């Protein structure tokens, strides 16, 4: 009896889980990036492979527990012993793993191994407890040098630039929200001024940590206009949950307007 209840409970848990995953009760938001379909495909592939293993594992467990409860004479081992099991594990799981690794490495490589498009638009991101700030190079296309000792958030010098003495920094545009033109390759450089942070945009399928002391490049192209959340996913202190910024993906014309407005406010 106990065994049969166990089997039913395990089967129910398996079914409910499978139902929730298949019907997307809670699911990923629609992808808006050029590389995202590869990652989504890889997640689907993994759901298929791992999901089959999950269902098979739980159902076999449940049915054996269902079938073999109680004393029933001399017990016997499965025909063939452990050898087929070990071979099964190596061959089937091994094949799945290799397949996932090869296909997965393509998805990963598409994001991380490919060089950024030469026409990429550079944007600097400064993360600090507990906000992001963004920097566009302005007309000269050059970012001013960073002087950490000059960072003064009270006077809104979030990056530590020196526009009075540094011609490159003079027309740098520092903003609190990030806007990008749609279908334009973007090259972000991530700096952190204090602790580890992360740059996570679910719709862009981008998550990358900031590491203090390192400049970390990351590139992507957004394919749909809209307003999205950039959130911090690396524990950074008491305001971690409130560390976010907005990403606006705009048409080229809207973006130009936006940048002009931001430049006027510097």
């Amino acid at each position, binding site marked *: 009896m106990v065994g049969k209840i*166990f089997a039913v*409970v395990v089967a129910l*848990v398996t079914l409910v*889980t499978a139902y929730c995953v298949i019907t997307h009760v*809670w*699911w990923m*938001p629609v992808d808006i990036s050029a590389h995202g379909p590869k*990652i989504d495909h890889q*997640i689907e592939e*993994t759901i298929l492979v*791992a*999901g089959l*293993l*999950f269902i098979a594992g*739980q159902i076999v467990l449940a049915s*054996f527990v269902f079938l*073999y*409860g*109680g*004393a029933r*004479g*001399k*017990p*016997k*081992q*499965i025909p063939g*012993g*452990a050898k087929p*099991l070990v071979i*099964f*594990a190596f061959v089937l*799981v*091994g094949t799945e793993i290799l397949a*996932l690794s090869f296909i*997965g490495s393509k*998805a*990963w490589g598409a*994001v*991380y191994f490919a060089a950024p498009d030469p026409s990429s638009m550079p944007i600097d991101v400064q993360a600090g*407890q507990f906000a992001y700030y963004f920097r566009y190079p302005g007309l000269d296309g050059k970012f001013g040098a960073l002087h*950490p*000792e000059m960072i003064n958030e009270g006077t809104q010098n979030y990056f530590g630039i020196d526009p009075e003495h540094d011609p490159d920094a003079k027309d740098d545009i520092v903003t609190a929200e990030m806007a990008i033109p749609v279908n334009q390759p973007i090259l972000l450089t991530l700096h952190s*001024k*204090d*602790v*580890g942070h992360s740059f996570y945009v*679910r719709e862009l*399928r*981008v998550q*990358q940590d900031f*590491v*203090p002391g*390192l400049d970390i490049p990351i590139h992507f192209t957004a394919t749909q206009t809209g307003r999205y959340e950039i959130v911090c*996913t*690396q*524990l950074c*202190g*008491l305001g*971690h949950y*409130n560390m976010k910024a907005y990403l606006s993906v705009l048409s080229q014309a809207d973006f130009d307007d936006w940048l002009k407005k931001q430049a006027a406010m510097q």
Partner: protein
Amino acid sequence: MAETSVQAAHHAAPQGFIRKYLFSVDHKVIGIQYLTLSMVAAFVGMALSWAMRLHLAYPDFRIPLLGWLSPNGAPNGVMTPEYYLSLMTMHGTIMAFFVLTAAPFAGFGNFLLPIQVGAADMAFPRLNMTSFWVTFVGFLLAAATFFIPDGPPLSGWTAYAPLSAVGSVAGPGQGLGQTLWVFSIALFCIASLLGALNFIVTTLDLRTKGLTLSRLPLSTWAWFIDAWVSLLAFAVLLPCGLLLALDRLGGTSFFIPGGLVFNDQLQPHSGGSPLLFQHLFWFFGHPEVYIIILPAFGIVSHIFPTFIRKPLVGGWKVITFAEIAVGTLSFVVWGHHMFVSGMSPFMAMVFSVPTLFITIPSVIAVLVWVFSLYGSNLRFDTPMLYSLGFVSLFITGGIGGFFLAQPSTDSYLHATSFVVGHFHFTMGLSAIFATFAGFYYWYPKMFGRMMNEKLGKLHFWLSFVGVYCVFMTLHLTGFAGSVRRYSAFVDDFMIPLMPAQRFMTISALLLGASQFIFLFNAIWSRFKGPKAADNPWGATTLEWDTTSPPPFDNFGGRQLTVYHGPMEYHGEASVMQTSPAASVAGT
């Protein structure tokens, strides 16, 4: 050689309360001390998770007692964000170190390993006592952080630098709280290193006559393998903790780069590397997951044959070699915690492959357990129910690993609640279920009384269903991009997930409440449970060949000789390891 060592470890029975129960060198007392400490720690950790879950799902709810316990951290019972993170840090620290590492390895291992190898005590009894008391002081230091003005640290149990390294400028709790935390962990490392040495030497040197390695009980095998993994992993965490302490107190910059600005103040550090901390931490941290789960493998593999009344399929070899493979591979996979950390993306591929390959020995272990059920005579006593529950939870947990082992899928799921669900299933609940299995199984041996079966089963059903309700939901919200380690949900994105949050909170409260059934059962049975026979389960290993509880020197001066392996089960009949009778053929 074995005999001289047995004599070396033999010592007279202690007199007086303090030597007998407090500063005892008896491995059985030390084992029970470890188990008691981890039970206290587990209930503390659980209370912390209750407070956190309540706050997440009902942010305005005034949590009873919390405002009184910490007027600073939770004015009027509504916790501040920093207090939430402090509770989270201490939940992780207490559970990972003082419960999951302490109970299945140090707790059961201490009580049972010497008995299972037929020895009178551990190889180094005084060292053993030192291990426990150092662990205890470590726990006190961790607990003390609740009673200092700024409270416990808020940097998580992983304590990433530079958040953990720069001091109080990084946030409340990062001052004295983090310092106490570092020393608490350093003490835990020292205790674990001493304990691991003791386990290794005892297994190698103190085995009784005829107990070859191939006849070792599977639990002893797992503790033995685990001791090696502990020895190598804690040997890295200890210096990592000391370097962190130097950065905090000695003005060094091992983990702190130059040019950091906190609160508009340039910090006087230069040249350190935050990634170095992550490498050192996870070089320990990933094996740590297996340090937690390997004893669970052993306990379950030890319990299975007793209740299926036959040996595991593949005998001792397949499961043991799977454990050795898991333990070995665990040292080359740590980078999968760092796919999005800024480590070279090429390294991500390097770490991804062994991470996926470690599933092969894990799958072999699962197949051994599941297919051993085939053709068996299953008995559903509570220890077996918990072992079966362990297998189900471990399968589920392992499945999540496929998503996190690949950098491409991890880059979406990293730091979402999917990860939280995954590691709670694998290293958290699987290990807890195996611990419960071991507790119900060995309780009669430890205390000479049986636990109540009805309460045990009720405890199982509530726990099993509760675990799935809480932690499977975490997986699902993770797919939706729910970020972990948030003390409240302000994002437009996360607010629609509130119904799921409430469901998890209510499930977690019920899951936690059902643990009191266990607590009651454990205490009540100690005094009122029916007297246990020497071998109530019809098992075969040496711990069942002595009285319940065993005498001070375990076997009353008998020198045992072992003739069989640990899995001589043939339906209702079984052959004790020490029985000179021939094996009933046909495995």
